[in-house]
């Protein structure tokens, strides 16, 4: 049902109906706080579909501990302060589990908010499940007990990526181009350090930071890359910065390999297809549509049939499955107990691997894949964004090779 | 045709809160040269602006038998009423020739005047045909303004203080042009503060004072009426 009408009716009804509230006690409410209007809406809406799909699946099997899961969407407009307001709304509406993924700034704000809220409201704790914000700091210096992350943080991704790259002797000269903000800077500095350690012979011929989402034409940057003679580029760019960069590269006839974090993000596949960079763009992911794992392939097909879009976030499946497992293990939906149950939990991942939630910092570790994008081949079934091109695994990094130390010092509730 | 070409009846106009025109009535006949005299601030310019539709008036203005109150300036102009503003408003960046061409309402319409005709009357303009209007002297600008309006082929031309700030020689030239205009069958409504040209070339004169017409008659009659001159015109 369309949210507008639904909410209007609910809004009217909610005023007087306590019985409805009592009935609602029986559901386990998960507040989904992500952009649902404005700039990031399409991404936020897509994430929401994952949660709704999984909740329906769980509910169809009778729910958890006999209670149904209910996803409450809240629009945070990708604004940290607005997110806090929406989080407050969610808590008022009875949600004790919050989840969010778009934007490290929002994640940092939420994580901080949740910690303070729990400190100031003992007995009314909430827990925050992070499915996509990758700033390492969240599981390092700024870690706290209430925050759990299922996406590999950017350092881990770089660890995996460099572990893959170190065995590719063709790589001689690397150019780094990243967005000038914390994430881009993290990518850049980790790349430099890790490459130096693993492949000291690789020459870093360029290290560029460009303004975030403000560049209309990447041609000047591409000219620099070209002039540097690089054979590979590492970039953490996402969104338009990714699309524009690839476009400018294709225009200038730049022949390099692209090692990326978010080439698979919204619009990325379309952009790659447009530029015709067949299997020259690599992305580090925890899974993709064409990983030959039967259950995953089946879910992918079902998900596509239902929403018309591919599974972007295998980790959301991991997250929800582990949440359910934790609730069942704790025999309670109390955030404190869920949190304790999640700590150290080992669980099979969406694509059939083994993963575990490290108790030290609440970072989930899992197998990572290096995938390249190009025309579908070798029995791969799923394309992206109706381009006819799809992802293909070119490398897999086992969980063990993704583990990094953490600086997290966490205080746990007694 | 009994009705005069331009017939203004009981014209009222306000500028902001100020009641500038308080019932102005006068006529201009076909082929006639009529002057509207008066000191500054009595409403002469407002009268013309009201006729052109630049200031919204009440009352009646009929031009060639048609009521024109409520029309927009460009519509009034297209009916054949030409206006030469007091401040000249030549387009400084455009050349003399371009200024003239702008006076034409359309390229198809061929009127009484062509650029060449006007250059003949004013050889000065011809010499300066390709210089920007902004560098002309005051007198040349005045000539250009009148010529520009003539290019629109008006049947009646209203000229606001054409001799203001001009040297005697220039005043003579303007007088000559006015005569030439009249000769080609164009009626003239001359708005003046000074009597110089007005007395010489007008068929009839009106004197305005504080929003009314206070005198109507021939130049000779005005010359004879020292009281009116002293009260309304002289220092």
């Amino acid at each position, binding site marked *: 049902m369309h949210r507008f009408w639904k909410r209007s009716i609910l809004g009217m009804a909610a005023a007087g109906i306590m019985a409805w509230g009592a009935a609602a006690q029986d559901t386990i409410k998960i507040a989904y706080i992500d952009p649902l209007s404005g700039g990031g809406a399409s991404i936020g809406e897509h994430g929401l579909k994952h949660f709704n799909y999984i909740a329906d699946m769980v509910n169809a099997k009778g729910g958890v501990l006999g209670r149904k899961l209910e996803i409450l969407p809240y629009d945070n407009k990708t604004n940290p302060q607005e997110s806090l307001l929406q989080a407050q709304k969610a808590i008022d509406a009875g949600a004790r589990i919050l989840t969010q993924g778009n934007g490290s700034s929002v994640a940092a704000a939420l994580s901080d908010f949740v910690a303070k809220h729990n400190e100031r409201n003992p007995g009314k704790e909430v827990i925050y499940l992070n499915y996509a914000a990758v700033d390492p700091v969240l599981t390092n210096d700024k870690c706290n007990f209430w925050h759990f992350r299922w996406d590999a943080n950017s350092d881990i991704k770089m660890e995996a990526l460099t572990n893959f790259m170190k065995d590719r002797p063709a790589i001689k000269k690397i150019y780094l181009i990243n967005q000038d903000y914390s994430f881009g800077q993290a990518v850049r500095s980790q790349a430099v350090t890790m490459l130096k350690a693993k492949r000291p012979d690789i020459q870093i011929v360029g290290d560029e930071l460009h303004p975030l989402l403000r560049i209309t034409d990447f041609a000047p940057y591409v000219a620099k890359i070209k002039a540097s003679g690089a054979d590979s580029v590492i970039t953490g760019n996402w969104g338009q910065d990714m699309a524009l960069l690839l476009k400018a590269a294709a225009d200038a006839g730049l022949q390099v390999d692209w090692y990326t974090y978010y080439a698979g993000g919204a619009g990325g596949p379309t952009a790659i297809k447009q530029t015709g960079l067949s299997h020259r763009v690599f992305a580090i992911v925890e899974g993709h549509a064409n990983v030959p794992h039967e259950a995953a392939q089946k879910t992918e097909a079902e998900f596509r049939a239902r929403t018309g879009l591919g599974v972007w976030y295998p980790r959301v499946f991991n997250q929800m499955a582990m949440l359910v497992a934790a609730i069942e293990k704790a025999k309670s939906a109390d955030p404190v107990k869920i949190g304790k149950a999640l700590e150290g939990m080992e669980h099979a991942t969406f694509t059939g691997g083994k993963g575990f939630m490290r108790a030290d910092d609440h970072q989930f570790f899992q197998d990572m894949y290096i995938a390249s994008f190009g025309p579908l081949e070798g029995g791969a079934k799923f394309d992206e964004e109706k381009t006819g091109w799809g992802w293909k695994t070119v490398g897999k990094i086992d969980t063990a090779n993704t583990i990094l130390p953490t600086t997290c010092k966490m205080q746990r509730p007694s | 045709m009994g009705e005069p070409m331009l017939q203004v009846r009981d014209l009222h106009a306000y*500028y*902001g*809160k*100020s*009641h*500038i025109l*308080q019932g102005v009535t006068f006529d201009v006949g076909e082929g006639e040269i009529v002057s509207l005299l008066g*000191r*500054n*601030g009595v409403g002469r310019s407002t009268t013309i602006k009201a006729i052109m539709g630049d200031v919204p008036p009440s009352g009646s203005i009929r031009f060639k038998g048609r009521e024109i109150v409520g029309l927009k300036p460009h519509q009034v102009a297209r009916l054949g009423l030409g206006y030469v503003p*007091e401040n000249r408003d030549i387009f400084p960046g455009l050349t003399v020739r371009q200024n003239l061409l702008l006076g034409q309402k359309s390229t198809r319409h061929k009127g009484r005047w062509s650029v060449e005709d006007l250059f003949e009357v004013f050889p000065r303009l011809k010499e300066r045909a390709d210089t920007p209007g902004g560098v002309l002297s005051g007198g040349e600008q005045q000539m250009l303004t009148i010529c520009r309006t003539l290019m629109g082929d008006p049947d009646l031309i209203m000229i606001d*203080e054409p*001799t*203001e*700030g001009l040297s*005697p020689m220039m*005043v003579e030239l303007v007088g000559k042009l006015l005569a030439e205009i009249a000769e080609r069958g164009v009626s003239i409504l001359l708005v003046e*503060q*000074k*009597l*110089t*040209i007005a*007395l*010489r070339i007008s068929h009839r004169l009106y004197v305005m004072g*504080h*929003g009314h017409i206070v005198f109507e008659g021939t130049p000779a009659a005005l*010359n004879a009426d020292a009281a009116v001159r002293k009260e309304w*015109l*002289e*220092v």
Partner: protein
Amino acid sequence: MSAVALSLKDIHKSFGNTPIIRGVSLDVPVGERHAIIGPNGAGKSTLFHLISGRFPVSAGRILLRGEDITGLPPYQINRRGLSRSFQVTNIFPRLSVFENLRCGVLWSLGYRYSFWRFVEGLRDARERTEEVMEQIGMTARRAIPAGVLTYAEQRALEIGITIAGGANVIMLDEPTAGMSRSETENAVELIRKVSQGRTLIMVEHDMSVVFGLADTISVLVYGQIIATGAPAAIRQNREVREAYLGQAEEH
């Protein structure tokens, strides 16, 4: 000879290449009512703008009671005791009559830019404003926004603002322009009243106003003063007649 209130020393002003004021020198003694007349476009308003600091002069000096005020910004000149009105009504349209006048009063009483005391609490400002309001006969209209006053009232208010600050030298630019006969008469009365004990310089076209008010008249033609003198003398001046009525006219 009495002291000179305002003194112009060979003032020149050009806009681009066009000279508008071409060497004006003038001394106005303290307490005189001085009118500047001249045909349209002679540069009267420009001269006013130069004196009041609205435009910078191209050359020459302006002295206000002996003090050089050339090149000062308008507010500085105003603070030194010269106040002016405008040809086009120039008031604060959305403020009330009272507020308009009080704006004219504040600086002269030394309240300047203060934001730590309430304006309502300033007794002297209120009294001075009341006084001016009474003088221009608008006490009954005190709370009305200036923008909705009649034209003549706005002109009167304009004069009120001009004199409110108690300047010794007042310059009025066509104070009666656009007024009806009776309104003009009232305005002349008002001007006579408010210029009592001050120096008045005015530009005016209405000759009855000029001859009714002025002690001395200067005639500005083509950016130059061609004559200065008592009204009667000016009326007889041949050059002046020509400038106004044209030379061709003889009778």
